[in-house]
């Protein structure tokens, strides 16, 4: 018995060491295979799930419409997923596996700046184009990489837009307090907002960072309350937005505008906070209200996109869904423009891409970042997310100044 077990163990060992099977998933001939490591477990599960929805929606649409025409040939598309467990190091290994083992043609980005950053490094080394829609930290694009493209506006812009809107309100707000979670993305958001505020005559009365993954922010709230600002912003993720919002109400902190970088746009925000989410604003990459008219080849307006999406997934798409779909669209048009699946040609096509889609303008600067598409500002009104800025696309008027807690 023991001998058998020993033999078995020895065999298992050898297998583990050398037997990692080499799979060959690369599409035979008529399928283009994209690869993506998304967070299906771990702390970013929700966002990873949204990312996957956005990708799958494009894939299903494309295949249902006969596939992707490249030159004379039409291809089906497929996406190979792995779970990165919300960990950058795992995402890196998985990207290598997608390329080396699964022989995918192109990479779609993971969710989050941390994971996108490590995967971008892999894409660069392997010279495989990656388009991502969920990593907004500029550090990803400041490495001189040539193969990574982000369809979304950079982190610094997330809350700038909110301030831009705020200074045009009457009475004009004078002071700003902005806290941030201590992670790369959020600190860039904070930095962008603080710089903009200083340039435009807003006094920054509080700017500080709290530990990443904090479980209690009540003392940060107390400090903000003591500073008595007109505008309160927080740069962080969904959890942070919820914690800060609860804290503001608990300590009865009033302001003319309260906004978060990430959070209000996710349906979970309203679901979790109920009526306390009312009147909160958030910087968003996209909303259903945007009035872009895209070029043919996919749903051309946000409305059409959102309705079709709702039909398939039974919920309205938020901007995470949209920007993920947009990443696929960048590939679609670039591949068609290149007329080839050659990675270099597709990369060059991406670099010179300039198209309008339901998501907005997709065009990359020389770092690969889409600095051309503007952010929008959303506000939660009567439990619904409405777009309040910029005025030309807004489908509701900003409530300003927001009512005191308990009067919403």
């Amino acid at each position, binding site marked *: 018995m023991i001998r058998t077990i020993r033999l078995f163990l020895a065999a298992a060992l050898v297998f583990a060491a050398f037997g990692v099977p080499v799979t060959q998933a690369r599409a035979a001939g008529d399928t283009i295979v994209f690869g993506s490591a998304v967070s299906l*477990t771990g702390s970013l599960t929700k966002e990873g799930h949204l990312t996957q929805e956005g990708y799958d929606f494009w894939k299903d649409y494309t295949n249902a419409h006969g596939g992707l025409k490249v030159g004379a040939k039409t291809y089906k598309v497929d996406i190979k997923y792995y779970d990165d467990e919300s960990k950058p190091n795992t995402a890196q290994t998985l990207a290598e596996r997608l390329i080396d083992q699964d022989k995918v043609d192109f990479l779609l980005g993971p969710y989050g700046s941390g994971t996108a950053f490590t995967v971008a490094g892999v894409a660069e080394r392997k010279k495989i184009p990656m388009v991502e829609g969920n990593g907004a930290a500029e550090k990803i694009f400041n490495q001189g990489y040539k193969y990574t493209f982000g369809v979304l506006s950079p982190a610094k812009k997330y809350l700038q837009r909110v301030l831009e809107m705020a200074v045009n309100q009457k009475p004009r707000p004078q002071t700003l307090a902005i806290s941030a979670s201590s992670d790369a993305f959020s600190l860039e958001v904070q930095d962008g907002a603080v710089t903009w505020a200083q340039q435009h005559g807003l006094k920054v009365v509080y700017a500080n*960072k709290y530990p990443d*993954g904090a479980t*209690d922010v009540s*003392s940060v709230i*107390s400090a903000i309350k003591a500073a008595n600002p007109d505008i309160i912003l927080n740069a962080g993720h969904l959890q942070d937005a919820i914690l800060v919002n609860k804290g503001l109400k608990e300590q*009865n902190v009033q302001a003319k505008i309260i906004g978060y970088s990430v959070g209000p746009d996710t349906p979970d925000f309203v679901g979790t906070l109920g009526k*306390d989410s009312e009147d909160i604003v958030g910087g968003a990459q996209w909303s259903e209200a945007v009035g872009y008219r895209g070029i043919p080849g996919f749903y051309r307006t946000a409305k059409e996109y959102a309705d079709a999406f709702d039909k398939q997934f039974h919920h309205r798409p938020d901007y995470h869904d949209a920007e993920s779909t947009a990443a696929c669209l960048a590939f679609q048009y670039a591949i068609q423009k290149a007329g080839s699946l050659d990675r270099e040609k597709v990369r060059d096509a991406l670099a010179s891409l300039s198209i309008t889609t339901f998501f907005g303008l997709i065009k990359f600067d020389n770092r690969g970042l889409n600095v051309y598409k503007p952010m929008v500002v959303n506000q939660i009104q009567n439990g619904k997310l409405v777009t309040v800025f910029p005025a030309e696309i807004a489908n509701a008027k900003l409530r300003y100044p927001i009512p005191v807690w308990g009067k919403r």
Partner: protein
Amino acid sequence: MQLVLQNLVNGILSGGILALVALGFSLVYGIMNIINLAHGAFLMLGAYITWQLWSTFGLDPILAVPIAFVVLFAFGYGIQRGVINRVVRAPVLATFLLTFALSLLIETTALFVWTGDTRGVQTAYTGANFTLLGVTVPWAKLLTLVVALAITGILYLWLHRSRLGRAIRATSMDVGAAQMVGVRVAHVYGITYALGAGLAAAAGALLTLSYPLTPTMGDPFLIKGFVVCVLGGLGSVEGALVGGLVYGIVSSFATQFDVTIAGQHLSGTGLQDVLALVVLLVVLIVRPTGLVGRATA
């Protein structure tokens, strides 16, 4: 001055819940020498049970506390009798790794059951507050603290007065002797672990009032509970309470400090956990068994 008072209150309120989180962890650790890495997962389960009762039946989270406690108590008892007891006398790291794996199983299962969506509970008193001497006190957190203290008090009395409680304490001091006087160790261990799980669930239930729910929500609390239970003194009810309050107050006051040394800006808010951990290290070095620990703990 007002900010100082406010931060004191903030610290006490956040420390109270940390104390409850640490309490169950500390019992299991101190009595059975199990570093229960599934504690965070139990907390998460307690929170989800509470959320489920609230969203399905509209039950108030405070009323859900006993239900979450009982459910996890039974679950914890089953896990200890069915799984952990088989290797409970192995070197401490075996159970350490076992509970790590259990937490993986529980968290992944929760992901399938409740999905990764962020959830929350809203009550009539969510965010309600009152002001006393210029200090704003949120009712929900005060209620949380009161319930946490009540549970701590009941547990203390139960451990010292009841027959089973005494058996648990006796077992923690000397397993062999306890066995000789007729204590059924397997059962006592089951009850102890069940208590730990139940207390984690109670903490999770209370946390729904102030904290969003995800399947991984327990992780940061597990780590804080780990630190807090040693800060106060392992395996003691008073220790968890003192440890939680010290941790809460230190990290709360830390936010008031901001210094720049040689061009390096050090934000007390960013370093609040570091300062709490420095306090932990100093306490351990000066009093190697925690603030209220016994020499034999």
